[in-house]
């Protein structure tokens, strides 16, 4: 595997992690996931609905995509820890995308509850991937708590505002010893490429694909955007200059 993404001792060839929320149907979701090349996909944990038809788990099994349960909808560390344990029981995975949000209006992470939950889940043997603010200090504390990655937001969930504070994302990347995965706020392919150029190890997105006019096309765009940004990062961009630097030899 060339240039794998390593999380918690496991290797992934795709650096794009997809969410499954927002798709108009399982059929559309399935085609988008296939086009994205994602090997890891988030799901939420909710009450069983006896009237539900079709199962996202069956779809992911058919596609051979690994499930990453999240704790979406939790406002406290206690709720998030309980949801992670339920997910481990239901899905047989100790991996969790940890979300502890502060309020419905912004869906921004509550940093104190998030860190508390991360510490408890790491102690309980979970591989914790926390959705966090774009705060370099909080990212460092989450890494110190034993998280397998840190996943700062570019902007609020579902906003499509892109990366509002690229400088902070760079600071997080520069300091982190675990993969930094840009999570939330991606609007279109160029946002994804910027995240990778800033040095993120991967991108997690859902809305920008699942609510696009053509989810399948946007999923392919995101797959290519992750690759383009990653290659550019590895290639090393030229320095920005204030004046021209001729690319042709001087005239004779």
């Amino acid at each position, binding site marked *: 595997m060339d240039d794998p993404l390593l999380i918690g001792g496991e290797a992934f060839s795709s650096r794009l992690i997809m*969410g*499954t*929320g*927002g*798709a108009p149907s*399982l059929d559309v*979701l399935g085609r988008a996931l296939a086009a994205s090349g994602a090997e890891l996909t*988030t*799901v*939420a*944990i*909710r*009450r*069983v*609905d*006896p009237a*539900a038809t079709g*199962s*996202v*788990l069956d779809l992911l099994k058919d596609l051979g995509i690994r*499930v*990453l*349960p*999240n704790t*979406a909808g939790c406002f406290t560390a206690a709720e998030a820890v*309980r949801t992670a*344990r*339920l*997910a481990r*029981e*239901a*899905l047989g995975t100790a991996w969790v*995308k940890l*979300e502890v949000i502060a309020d419905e209006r912004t869906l921004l992470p509550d940093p104190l509850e998030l860190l508390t939950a991360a510490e408890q889940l790491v102690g309980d043997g979970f591989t914790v991937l926390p959705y966090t603010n774009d705060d370099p200090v909080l990212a460092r504390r989450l890494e110190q708590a034993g998280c397998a990655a840190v996943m700062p937001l570019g902007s609020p969930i579902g906003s499509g505002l892109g990366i509002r504070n690229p400088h902070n994302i760079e600071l997080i990347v520069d300091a982190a010893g675990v993969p930094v995965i840009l999570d939330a706020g991606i609007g279109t392919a160029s946002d994804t490429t910027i995240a990778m150029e800033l040095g993120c190890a991967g991108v997690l997105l*859902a809305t920008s694909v699942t609510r696009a006019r053509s989810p399948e096309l946007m999923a392919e765009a995101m797959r290519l955007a992750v690759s383009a940004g990653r290659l550019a990062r590895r290639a090393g961009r030229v320095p920005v200059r204030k004046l021209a630097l001729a690319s042709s030899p001087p005239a004779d």
Partner: protein
Amino acid sequence: MEIVVNGKPRRAAADVSLAQAVAMLTDAETGIAAAVNGDVIRRAAWEATRLSDGDEVEVLTAVQGG
């Protein structure tokens, strides 16, 4: 007696097991987790777990999200 399953009150026999309560909602063999009064119960213990009057049972699964 009466138990509460996923927020809805339900009549149940006095010796009802957690496995029977889960079966009220789903026959799925995998992908399901259950909690009684907030405590997660491993699937292997569902048959042996007897419910009491007023117990609150949560039966959960994975759905699209995130």
